[in-house]
């Protein structure tokens, strides 16, 4: 019983760390622009498929870790370029437009990326080459594979790195300043355009890593994989308090664990009335409940009036 619980917790944390990594992309952009970048999930998808293609090409040619590294590098490069392009072409011209305009543009960009990817990679499921054979380790009755462990640790390291970057570097300070008040930050010599571009680049690069993790972990990728992943990550960001970076991490991990626990126990708890296919319903129910009690999310400050 307890080992099943522990296993569900591990499943949830690994899944949650991927959600958190993607959620950061949403939350950083929202914090600075007040824009929900719905295309972010699809940027992650592009990263995933780029990594998949590179690894597929290199599998067997070079050692597995090198292939993965090359895949990650290529994905980060492509995603950063894509993130910067989206910002420059789609969002910057609309920065002072009514809020609805960039939101709808974001949805448009999302669809554009999806179907462009469908042209490039085709519409079927692609399988990721078996570069690593996961080794399982026993952990108090539960098992964890080295791949899971690597995903979890890498995600945590990246998130810690990002937090440090924002707190302790000049650029991070500039980002926080822009977040608080773009105009005043501008008067103090912060180039808002540059800061926003860097935010998009960072979020996209993190998303690229998350994309690689997802295709490597599940072994498959396809052109619309970004949709559900993006939706979940967005949910995680809202759960933690959108705009708040530690909140996104907390929200992601929490959402992963909730989903995992829900599919593990919901059937038994409701006497089989709701099956494990209700896990998403359950996850969103938790979101609704949290938002009723804390409308700005778990760690979000009530925004008051954004000047």
């Amino acid at each position: 019983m307890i080992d099943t619980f522990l296993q569900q917790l591990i499943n949830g944390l690994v899944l949650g760390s991927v959600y958190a990594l993607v959620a950061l992309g949403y939350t950083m952009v929202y914090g600075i622009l007040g824009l929900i970048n719905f295309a972010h999930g699809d940027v992650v998808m592009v990263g995933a498929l780029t990594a998949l293609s590179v690894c597929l090409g290199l599998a067997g040619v070079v050692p597995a870790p090198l292939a993965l590294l090359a895949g990650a590098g290529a994905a980060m490069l492509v995603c950063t370029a894509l993130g910067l392009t989206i910002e420059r072409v789609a969002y910057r011209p609309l920065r002072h437009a009514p809020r609805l305009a960039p939101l709808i543009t974001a949805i448009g960009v999302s669809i554009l990326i999806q179907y462009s990817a469908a042209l490039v990679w085709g519409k079927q499921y692609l399988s990721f080459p078996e570069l690593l054979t996961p080794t399982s380790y026993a952990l108090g009755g539960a098992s964890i594979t080295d791949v899971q462990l690597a995903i979890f640790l890498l995600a945590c390291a990246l998130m810690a790195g990002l937090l440090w970057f924002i707190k302790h570097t000049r650029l991070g300070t500039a980002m926080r300043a822009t977040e608080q008040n773009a105009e005043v930050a501008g008067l103090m010599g912060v180039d808002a355009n540059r800061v926003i571009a860097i935010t998009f680049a960072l979020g996209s690069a993190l998303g690229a890593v998350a994309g690689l993790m997802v295709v490597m972990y599940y072994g498959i990728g396809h052109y619309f994989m970004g949709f559900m992943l993006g939706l979940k990550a967005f949910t995680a960001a809202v759960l933690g308090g959108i705009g708040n970076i530690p909140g996104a991490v907390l929200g992601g991990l929490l959402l992963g664990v909730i989903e995992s626990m829900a599919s593990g126990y919901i059937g038994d708890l409701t006497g089989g009335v709701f099956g494990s296919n209700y896990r998403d319903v359950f996850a969103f129910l938790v979101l609704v409940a949290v938002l009723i009690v804390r409308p700005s999310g778990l760690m979000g400050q009530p925004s008051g009036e954004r000047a």
Partner: protein
Amino acid sequence: MKRLHPSLIAAALLLALQGCGKDEPPAAAKKAEAPPPPQEIVVKIGSASPLTGPQAHIGNDIRNGVQLAVEDINAKGLEIGGKKVKLELVAEDDEANPTKATTVAQKLVDAKVVGVVGHFNSGASIPASKIYSDAGVPQISPSSTNPKYTQQGFKTTFRVVANDDQQGPTLAKFALDKLKAKSIAVIDDSTAYGQGLADAFEAAAKAGGAKIVAREHTTDKDTDFKAILTKIKGKKPDLIMFGGIDPQAGPMVKQMSELGIKAKFMGGDGMQTPNFIKLAGTPAEGVMASIPGLPRDQMPGGKEFVEKFKKKFNADVELFAPMGYDAVFVFVDAMKRAGSTDPAKFLPEVGKTQMNGVIGPIAFDDKGDLKNGPITIYVVKGGIWEPLETVISGGDAKPAQAAATPAAAPAAAPDAKK
């Protein structure tokens, strides 16, 4: 949406006009004086399957099978009722989506197709069948195995595969007799196909004395099954049965091995694809799946078909291309016997089909189900699906559901009594 409508209607009208224009005059002219055929009539055959999305590889496989049949027939030249006929393929994408399936069905009907090969998913075939039935257009599904599809009382529904009332119990019997499974966990993908197959399996397995220790559901979009597999692991089954398609089955088997679950894994036709082995990787070894029909190399026309298919599309046959191919020949065969390309005239002939297709002998019972559809159980060995054994369905494991499908039973009765 608003802007789409007029153009759609216009397109449909145009198609309809074109159809009429080509259809009627030569028909009249032909009867008067036979020898010089001035024009050939174009007869449209519809194909409906998911051409995009996770099941696109299987849907395209079917469409390619249909296309191959159309081209083969045209290359040979076809004459029906003394008129030269050219077949034309109208392929539509239903996205494996029940709602989209009805839209597509209406589109095909509006395009004046004389018959439809499709859909792939039971969940799509069933809602679409009402539209074909209302329009009097015969529908042959190459792959939908949910029993309900042909049990709605429509005269236009046919299928060239065994249904799940046959497949589910066959799998269950195999699990109990050959694998000696005592405790079984059942998972389905919450679709008409997956759940239907899993239900049929579960009922038959229970009737056979096995214990169902867990019944779990996922969706046909999911790729993360760790949570439900962990739960199942706690119940220690010796077999896991999955009702669903390969995009789920592949990762599921992979995640099973990561969690250290030692249970055997089996499923239905939706996962018996090369793609499944690619997705699951090495843990695919030893996985079993049933598929209605004979093994491809034992199909009378199987070997030749596989080669032809490979040459034309530079792709391996995934699953139901041979069934799609044969379905077109069933239509053409019925048209020949009726001497007409009018669905109203040749529909009764479809039910009387007695032909040998790529997949073997094709004949329908009074509901439109394939008579004596064979079912083959495969196992993954050395990275490919190898046939284990073929069961001619109809009897054996049926008693539990005999009432549901009386029609298939008599023919197979001698076998069943053994």
